[in-house]
């Protein structure tokens, strides 16, 4: 591997600029004549707009213009769309309501954008926004998914009667019902998956620049996928044709899914720039982020898991209601369907599975993919059910899992996925020995002596990364292909630029992608530059989400490197008068195997560009492009164990230890992988113990609109994690890698809740706040005393 190649713990190249405050984010961008936007937003969860008066606002100092939804509509700007078509089980297409970038006649959640003010400063724009008068006729609102489906619930979109977007199913219902009917034991449980706000450190921002001379638009924005943004804005929103629109996503400070989507603000800033003749910049503040960034999760599910007399799972039936909020965000329909129900087999051989998923509109922020996207919901449901089943059956949670593990690969699940490789036993054993599972009873007894309640819990997760084979997702309704592109440019002096369609917003691509090139070509890491995030520089690409940059993005680079290598060898063979098949690349040189003939890498590159002496018919230059379309998903899996201690006086949970044993396949940079796991665990622990978006269920006001009320995990909420890696290389991509960005957030919530319920002996929902744990203990006390 070498000091800088695959497998090396190379310090991140990008950290110097991030840690010294030299990163360049969208809000740092300054263009001549730039002005500032402030959005007028709905204070109501649901209301008709009966009038908008902007004349006072327009007269305010520093104001350039105030624009509303009618003007936007008159200019032909289209509706925001959901890009993944789902059909209900009756064959009807999903019922998508209209989402105007600026509301025209109805607002559907608190924060819905109504008008934009452009002024010389943010403060002046905000002053003017305060005097825009919008006349609202308030309508009743509905907040929870269950209430939205009830008869007589407020109707949110005329297109979706009863607020039902689709009623979808997967798997074999009859076979599953039969398994349940014939089961020796059925575990039934209701699962709630709490609603979360993604909270990237950098809030969303957009800078729209219209150049009248060229009739051309530039959009700087906080995006995980600038090419997709350009595609959607030109193909659907009618902002500008693709060749007239450049999208730049510079340094982006975290996304966690929330920056995949194209939001109203970037569209409106681009349009407003043309309308006003000045570049228009908008930066969200933190409360605006809570109010308008797409939220995650929010599922209510009923589960039945059927076992035979030997404790083998023979059937799993799931009924889920997913809250999609007030509008269908870009991938919102895929998250509770193909990213969720297809993982319901978990690590287990389950012959019959059936899941029914209903998605509903409510008067809340749109809900879409958030770190893990569907897989945390599946894992939480399955691993909580397994735990409850083990308790009901009186067997150890590890034994129940072991008994049901899939042990031979490839394995076709009843819910589409074909697992290619894995060794679930390896991760389970590694985790149990790291946690000293067998010594737990003694630790529990010791804690009891101190009046504390100890619990231990595990979770065996599987997830699907590296999305995704384009043909497969196309057949399931995706509006795009999910391949990735790469271009490798070898300069005349031998240095290298890699242009990738992946986008780094914290993942460390500038380092790991360079490590791949250094490893392959034997050049120093410092001579490799990674270019991404600008549609004018990089050819069409699909961006970063679903832990796809390694498995898909790097595989595209491998393909381009294959071509570069082939041409480089041809040139070297020609110059050294050797056979092409005898050329090897080693330590920055091309060598003729078995001889002392050698050609430094840079001389080969120079020869490619001087073109004085190339093989007959060869084109000058050394630059290759590749598109890589994966043939399957990848399947990271692992076992997480949490041990907690609960203070029964206050209900507070302390995490004593947290063990994560992950199989990510081959690893490019262990340090970066550990960082990804740490971050994922922090978010998963946040979901399990602290985080929850809450709305007032009558008024629809967001109650958790700042960090005063939304509890983010902090360093002292977390233990030092014990990590280990098992490795079954992924057979479907050239690097054998699976993806590691989301695992931490996927596997950890059920491990924690299993540990907490083990400690307190009663069920609890996430987040398991001290209040809820205390209440659960109080409620259980009379019963325990009576027993």
């Amino acid at each position: 591997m070498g000091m800088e190649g695959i497998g090396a713990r190379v310090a991140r190249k990008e950290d110097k600029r991030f840690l010294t405050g030299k990163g360049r984010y969208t809000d740092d961008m300054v263009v001549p004549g730039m002005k500032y936007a402030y959005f007028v937003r709905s204070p109501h969860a649901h209301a008709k707009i009966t009038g908008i008066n902007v004349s006072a606002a327009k007269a305010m100092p520093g104001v350039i213009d105030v624009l509303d939804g009618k003007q936007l509509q008159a200019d032909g700007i289209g509706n925001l769309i959901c890009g993944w078509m789902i059909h209900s089980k009756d064959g009807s297409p999903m019922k998508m309501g209209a989402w105007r970038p600026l509301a025209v006649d109805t607002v559907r959640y608190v924060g819905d954008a109504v008008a934009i003010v452009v002024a010389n400063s943010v403060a002046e724009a905000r002053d003017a926004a305060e005097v825009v008068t919008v006349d609202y006729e308030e309508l009743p609102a509905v907040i929870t998914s269950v209430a939205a489906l009830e008869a007589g619930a407020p109707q949110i979109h005329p297109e979706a009667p009863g607020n039902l977007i689709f009623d979808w199913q997967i798997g074999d219902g009859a076979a599953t019902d039969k398994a349940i009917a014939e089961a020796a034991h059925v575990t039934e449980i209701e699962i709630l998956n709490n609603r979360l706000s993604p909270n990237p450190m950098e809030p969303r921002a957009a800078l729209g620049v219209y150049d009248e001379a060229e009739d051309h638009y530039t959009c700087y924005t906080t995006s995980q996928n600038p090419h997709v943004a350009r595609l959607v804005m030109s193909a659907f929103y009618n902002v500008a044709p693709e060749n007239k629109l450049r999208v730049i996503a510079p340094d982006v400070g975290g996304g966690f899914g929330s920056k995949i989507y194209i939001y109203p603000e970037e569209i409106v800033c681009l349009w407003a720039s043309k309308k006003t003749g000045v570049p228009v910049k908008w930066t969200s503040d933190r409360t605006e982020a809570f109010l308008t960034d797409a939220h995650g999760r929010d599922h209510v599910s009923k589960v039945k898991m059927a076992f035979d007399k030997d404790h083998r799972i023979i059937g799993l039936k799931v009924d889920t209601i997913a809250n999609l909020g007030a509008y269908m965000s870009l991938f919102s329909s895929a998250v509770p369907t193909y990213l969720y129900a297809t993982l319901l087999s978990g690590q287990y051989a389950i012959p019959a599975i059936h899941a029914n998923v209903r998605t509903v509109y409510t008067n809340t922020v749109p809900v879409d993919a958030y770190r893990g996207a569907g897989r945390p919901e599946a894992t939480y449901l399955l691993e909580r059910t397994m735990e409850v089943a083990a308790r009901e059956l009186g067997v150890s949670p590890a034994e129940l899992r072991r008994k049901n593990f899939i042990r031979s690969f490839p394995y076709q699940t009843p819910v589409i996925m074909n697992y290619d490789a894995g060794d679930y036993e390896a991760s389970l054993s590694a985790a149990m020995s790291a946690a000293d599972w067998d010594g737990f009873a003694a630790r529990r007894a010791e804690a009891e002596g101190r009046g504390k309640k100890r619990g231990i819990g595990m979770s065996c997760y599987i997830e699907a990364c590296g999305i995704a084979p384009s043909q497969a997702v196309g057949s399931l309704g995706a509006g795009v292909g999910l391949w990735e592109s790469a271009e490798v440019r070898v300069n005349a002096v031998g240095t290298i630029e890699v242009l990738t369609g992946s986008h780094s917003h914290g993942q460390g691509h500038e380092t790991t992608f360079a490590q791949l090139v250094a490893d392959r070509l034997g050049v120093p890491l410092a001579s490799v530059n990674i270019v991404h995030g600008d549609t004018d520089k990089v050819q069409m690409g699909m961006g970063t989400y679903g832990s796809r940059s390694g498995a898909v993005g790097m595989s595209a680079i491998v393909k381009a490197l294959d071509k570069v290598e082939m041409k480089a060898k041809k040139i070297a063979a020609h110059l050294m008068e050797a056979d092409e098949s005898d050329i090897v690349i080693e330590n920055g040189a091309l060598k003729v195997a078995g001889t002392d003939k050698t050609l430094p890498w840079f001389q080969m590159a120079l020869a490619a560009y001087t073109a004085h002496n190339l093989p007959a018919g060869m084109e000058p230059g050394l630059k290759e492009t590749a598109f890589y379309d994966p043939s399957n998903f990848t399947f990271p899996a692992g076992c997480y164990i949490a041990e907690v201690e609960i203070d029964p006086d206050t209900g507070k949970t302390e995490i004593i230890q947290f063990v994560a044993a992950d199989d990510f396949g081959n690893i490019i940079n262990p340090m970066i992988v550990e960082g990804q796991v740490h971050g994922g665990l922090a978010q998963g622990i946040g979901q399990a113990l602290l985080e929850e978006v809450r709305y007032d269920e009558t008024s629809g006001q967001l109650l958790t609109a700042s960090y005063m009320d939304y509890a983010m995990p902090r360093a002292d909420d977390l233990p030092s994690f014990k990590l280990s890696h098992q490795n079954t290389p992924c057979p479907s991509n050239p690097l054998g890698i699976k993806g590691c960005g989301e695992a931490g957030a996927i596997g950890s919530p059920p491990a924690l809740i299993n540990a907490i319920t083990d400690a307190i002996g009663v069920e609890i929902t996430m987040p398991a706040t001290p209040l809820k744990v205390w209440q659960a203990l109080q409620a259980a006390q009379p019963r325990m005393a009576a027993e």
Partner: protein
Amino acid sequence: MYDTNYHRASSVEEAVKLRSSQDEARYLSGGMTLIATMKQRLAAPSDLVDLRHVASMKGISVEGRKVRIGAGTTHAEVASSSALKSVCPAICHLAGMIGDPHVRHMGTIGGSVANNDPAADYPSAVLALNATVVTDRREIVADDYFQGMFDTALEEGELITAITFEAPEKAGYAKFPNPASRYALTGVFVAKGASGVRVAVTGAGSNGVFRATDIEIALSASWSSDFVASVAVDAGQLMEDMHATPEYRANLVKVMAKRAVAMAG
């Protein structure tokens, strides 16, 4: 934030004069509450009178058991004062648990006591220590000073210059932080001294900081954490919000009081 005028006062007299010369002027101390409120446009003072350069409002003096903490003293200074630690470590412990390091290096005791946030830590110490709030014009005893949520005995333009108290024989503070804000979901300060046993509760009362008289009586009879068994805390007067029920807070009052007593020794 709306436009505002900034003034820097260098003495108590100058500060009071600057403050009274404008209708909508406000004192600015650490700014940890006021500036945030202004940024959210929930406060819009026309003028800010910065107190941070008034030398007489700074610092901690301990003479025998008499303690004086200047209103402009930061939480970090209180937390780390060895003079204070030697006579009343509980208040240092309290200050060290306020917010985060940034907040502790900016925020001040005067600002906190003037603001009287129902979940702030200091009001419990001031009340339990039977402290005196010294202002530019008078001295106000703690029992008269706190008048409800964000409400105090301060008159318009009245400036807190110091907090004084007689160091107790024993004192302790225990706080159960709100998981989100880390303010006190319930905090209890107990003190035993010349004025008897005083127990003050913050974060829990629907009317701001209050004295838990039943616990005071029990602790006066016997200074030990056994009181928990005998005392009932009435949830009726306690706050209900998304983070805690009155019943949970009532429980926390007892649990935190017990821990505060244990800390006091």
